[in-house]
């Protein structure tokens, strides 16, 4: 097998199996990303996008199937031991940071993904300087507030911090789950812009979930559409360049037709 950054092989996840609420969230889903791929994940509510990202990060164990990162089987590896490879930003700004700790301490936590915690002093001068430089790139003034508690930041500032934390240390895999959806349009644009610059500069292999079709068209190297727990279409290259908002929405429509016919 050629070495991929990510392989999801026949992933299957059923919630509440054997009950009336049974829900097949991932239905033998398979997906591969080459190093440097930037996949934009689209699909209607409940298609399984978040579930797939949870399975990749290890937050959710699969019923069956496999997850390989850099060719290495991590299906049974816990979240904390996958963290060396995987960084995430969630939709909810509260989830990605430790609220009662300072900005600098949060930046240090992100650094621990790459190098496990030691008994050395955490916040050295060299680190503070580095964090200041990294945060300055956001132009939000966070670089002057290293000792501020994160709980005092706005949602947009927290999300920007989460992003900087996620891309620091150049993870093998960056997972973004509607990470600008909870922000006002201006802040969302700032965070998205910072995302694109980081992904491009560091050539990060990335999966980004969005409901914004224009973003799917403008950004990324692939558009991966999920439907009912599977990959419904995977568009890249020239085909992706030809996509329009209308053509993507039409694909959603097809699916709804299916549902109508199936009902």
């Amino acid at each position, binding site marked *: 097998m050629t070495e991929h950054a990510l392989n999801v092989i026949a992933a299957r996840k059923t919630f509440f199996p054997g009950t009336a609420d049974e829900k097949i969230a991932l239905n033998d889903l398979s997906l591969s990303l080459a190093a440097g791929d930037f996949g934009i994940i689209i699909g209607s509510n409940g298609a399984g996008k978040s579930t797939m990202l949870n399975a990749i990060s290890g937050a959710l164990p699969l019923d069956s199937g496999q997850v390989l990162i850099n060719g290495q089987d991590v299906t049974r590896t816990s*979240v904390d031991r996958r963290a060396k490879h995987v960084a995430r930003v969630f939709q909810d700004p509260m*989830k990605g940071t430790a609220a009662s700790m300072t900005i600098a301490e949060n930046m240090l936590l992100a650094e*621990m993904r790459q190098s496990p915690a030691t*008994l050395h002093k955490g916040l050295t001068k060299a680190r503070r300087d580095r964090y200041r430089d990294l945060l300055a790139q956001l132009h939000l003034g966070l670089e002057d507030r290293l000792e501020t508690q994160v709980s005092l930041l706005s949602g947009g500032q927290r999300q920007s911090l989460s992003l900087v934390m996620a891309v620091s240390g150049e993870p093998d895999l960056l997972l973004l789950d509607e990470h600008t959806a909870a922000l006002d349009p201006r802040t969302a644009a700032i965070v998205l812009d910072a995302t694109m610059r980081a992904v491009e500069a560091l050539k990060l292999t990335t999966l980004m979930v969005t409901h914004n079709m224009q973003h799917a068209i403008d950004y990324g190297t692939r558009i991966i559409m999920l439907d009912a727990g599977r990959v419904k279409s995977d568009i890249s290259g020239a085909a992706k360049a030809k996509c329009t908002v209308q053509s993507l929405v039409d694909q959603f429509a097809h699916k709804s037709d299916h549902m109508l016919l199936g009902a």
Partner: protein
Amino acid sequence: MDVFNLFLSLVPVTLAQSLILSFVVLAVMIPFRILSFPDLTSEGSYPLGGCVCAVALLAGIPPLLALALAAAAGFLAGVVTAVIHLRFRIHTLLAGILVTTMLYSINLRVMGKANLPIFGEAKIYDFFPFDLGSINYTKIIIAGLFALLVFVMLNLWFRTERGIAMRAVGSNPDMSEAQGISVWKATIGGVGMAGAFAAIGGGLMVQSQGFSDANMGLGILINALAALMIGEALVGKQTITRQLAAPFVGAFAYYQLISLCLAAGLPPSDLKIATGVFVLLMLAGPELRRAKGPRAAQEAFRE
């Protein structure tokens, strides 16, 4: 004026007591505030420390080593509570009550009877080479040195990478895990550490009072909680240094308050209800204020 003089005369005694209590306050504070793991185990690990220490002294083990054995036993008690919660998803408070209840029997087994005098054995307080006129001053200096050492060490620890990782687990466990931190290790380490401190408190107490008693932990948790509330009200908890200072300041202020009440004529048997009402008021404070103003952010604790 009588009340005041009586109060003053009690200061040396209460100071020694409060330095010992501050270890138990630490044992309440670390899980509660740093790990968001409200824990009652100290009610059991405090007498456990006392029992282990007394038995060790009677076996001829030197006082410092006896204290270390007590700490190890307390650490183990904390580990059991943490594992019960982590493995079986049992509420942290219930896990602590379970361990405390079981420890009562264990403590009796360790001692072989309910009360063990150690008047004749060498004590940690004998190390002090000078005679200050009163054993109370010696106790203050020895217990104070221990407290100072622990305060400094904890300040250093919670600034190391591992210490910061431990605090992160209390702040946001899911996020910490996503940063490669093991929630299990941090929780077990932190709650174990708290158990060790409670046991050291028990060991210092036993060596101070000259006997160990299976019932010596009764109500210690609420005393410690009251002290923590006072300490946090006095020095705050915005930074880790303040959070770590609160138990020591709180334990001191708490004992002065108690001694003032006693000097003013409050019967000792009413102390528990006074302390309980005080803790209740401190805990209810935010809720009472909220009834008027906008809802304050709820603190999230593990269940």
